[in-house]
């Protein structure tokens, strides 16, 4: 047998040092280390504390609106003429995306740690809005770092954050996207470490963030697994989610990792093609390196300088990925494939027309993979797609791609 050696379970990581195989870790300045160790201690207590879990459950139910529906997408299924398509409706959550799941968990931790100020980075603005929302709800001042390019292309979300009382700081270094926002948030954190909680929005960064964000987002996959068993009486044949940093994807994937018959596909932003630098497919076209506190697949040049990628979707416009995805890639459990800007745009329009659902451009990447895959599968087979967010924020971008003005 030439099969790679498979672990007994894909769900046990990270180890004590915060590593998923060779990925992950704690590559941060000394100034932050004591706080990161304290965060780990607090997180380890919180995750087994019934009172913490009860408060989170209560907020998830009555504030965020969980559980989100698992919706049989009859229009898409009929249009594609193959496997049955189900959409996990994270777009229906309060604030319009999966980001609220993580923000509710982390704001409770911030409160538990006695921190008095929240900072966050954001790409598409979905995490920024969710951070501003929970900060408003719990009475914390909130500063959101956002790349200047993203501020421009996600104006509706910038205004929402300001309405919610957050201060939005545009970051103009680099290409003015998520990577640059994260650098600036880390600089703020290292300066204000005594009173500030850094609410990281994706399953990346130094340990324990990748594990913690995954745990808060795994509610997506846990629900989806129960719902599909209830609605179809069996597990799906494939599950698909888009991967930027990878929080919505790890949230859907993690509860299914040990269901070996379920094919799991993560979608990277192929941008304008993998030939040059105008994409964000770090696992398809990058190599392992160290950035933002963890070792993971990164887009970089031969000197180890990080390269700015491109994606039509601000939420996927990041040259790295969460470390657990890098490990899942190398272990072979999850397939990661790119979807191009134009394929995502076509899926965006299709879903809008045949389902009456405007998906986020990030989620449209996942749908675009189902557009390719479903027709090759039988009518009895099932695909579950994470519809991670709604697309209202993207209408300006889509209009300009379509050459329209409004």
């Amino acid at each position: 047998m030439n099969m790679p050696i498979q672990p007994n379970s894909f769900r046990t990581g990270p180890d004590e040092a915060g590593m998923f195989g060779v990925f992950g870790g704690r590559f941060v300045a000394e100034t932050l280390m004591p706080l990161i160790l304290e965060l780990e201690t607090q997180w380890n207590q919180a995750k087994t504390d019934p009172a913490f879990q009860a408060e989170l459950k209560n907020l998830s139910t009555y504030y965020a609106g969980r559980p989100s529906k698992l919706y049989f997408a009859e229009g898409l299924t009929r249009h594609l003429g193959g496997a049955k398509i189900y959409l996990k409706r994270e777009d229906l959550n309060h604030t319009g995306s999966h980001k609220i799941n993580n923000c509710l968990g982390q704001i409770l931790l911030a409160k538990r740690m006695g921190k008095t100020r929240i900072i966050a980075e954001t790409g598409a603005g979905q995490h920024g809005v969710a951070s501003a929302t929970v900060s408003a709800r719990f009475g914390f001042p909130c500063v959101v770092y956002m790349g200047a390019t993203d501020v421009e292309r996600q104006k509706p979300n910038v205004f929402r954050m300001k309405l919610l009382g957050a201060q939005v700081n545009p970051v103009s270094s680099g290409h003015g996207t998520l990577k640059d926002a994260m650098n600036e948030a880390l600089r703020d954190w290292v300066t204000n470490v005594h009173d500030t909680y850094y609410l990281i929005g994706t399953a990346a960064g130094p340990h324990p963030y990748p594990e913690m964000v995954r745990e808060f987002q795994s509610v997506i996959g846990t629900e989806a697994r129960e719902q599909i068993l209830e609605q179809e009486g069996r597990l799906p044949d494939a599950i698909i989610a888009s991967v930027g940093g990878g929080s919505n994807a790890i949230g859907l994937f993690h509860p299914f990792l040990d269901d070996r018959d379920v094919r799991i596909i993560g979608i990277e932003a192929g941008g304008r093609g993998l030939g040059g630098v105008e994409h964000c497919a770090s696992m398809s076209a990058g190599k392992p390196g160290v950035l933002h506190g963890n070792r993971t697949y990164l887009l970089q040049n031969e000197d180890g300088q990080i390269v700015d990628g491109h994606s039509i979707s601000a939420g996927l416009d990041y040259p790295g990925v969460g470390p657990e995805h890098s490990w899942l890639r190398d272990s072979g459990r999850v397939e990661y494939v790119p979807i191009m800007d134009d394929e995502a745009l076509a899926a965006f329009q299709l879903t809008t027309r045949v389902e009456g659902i405007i998906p986020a451009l990030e989620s449209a990447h996942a749908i675009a993979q189902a557009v390719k895959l479903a027709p090759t599968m039988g009518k009895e087979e099932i695909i579950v797609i994470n519809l991670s967010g709604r697309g209202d924020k993207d209408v300006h971008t889509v209009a300009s791609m379509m050459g329209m003005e409004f």
Partner: protein
Amino acid sequence: MTTTRIDRCFAKLKDEGRPALVTYFMGGDPDYETSLKIMKAMPAAGTDVIELGMPFSDPMADGPAIQAAGLRALKGGQTLARTIQMVRDFRAHDDDTPIVMMGYYNPIYIYGVERFLAEARDAGLDGLIVVDLPPEMDAELCVPALKAGINFIRLATPTTDAKRLPKVLENTSGFVYYVSMTGITGSALANTGDVSEAVARIKSHTDLPVCVGFGVKTAEQARAIGASADGVVVGTAIVNAVASVLGPDGQMTADPAEAVATLVSGLAQGVRRARLEAVD
């Protein structure tokens, strides 16, 4: 490990009874030749230890001045290989002044840790400061560097409490770099009273020299910090001196090496006054 130029330098300065002046510049800013000229001008102007910045695209612990310097260097074609070459070129006519390379881990990781250490040591490198490698990640570079005979200089910060300090000092060699405040490079200087207290606290745990940096910009500040520290690190002010003679398109309006030498001379006078006036 055997003694390095760093160990010999601090031993000599201890005999002289004065703190070291440690000066940082960005390798390759604004171009290789100019930058090498800056480096060569430093010892004559009064630098005791040179910190050679390795540019990185995403310098998470640096303020705007060093961020901009790194981008200028990268735009000028600087790579890690050329930064090692800079050490080699410098050593061709200065075999005494200690050189410490400072930067972030990824370019070294991509270059290959063993290859980097072998080439850097052969070029004449003495020490390394890598901002994003805390003691928890010692197996990555710190332990291999010590084996290769290169000092691994750790940062201690105001958040490094008494419980953690021994862990930070465990594999440190050469000197300890005390970061005077929580923040990024180039911020305002901390209260000198707090700094001397922190230096005393660290010195009670180690025999290594303790140098203080982050926020020291003037000769007067260098004097004040040097009263208690074994060395004073100046970075952003030097990088700013280079930037001050660059026009909007990056063209040089004066000689950057001369601008840096003038600044370093003043700082050197500051550290030389430190102990005299401290005794008064």
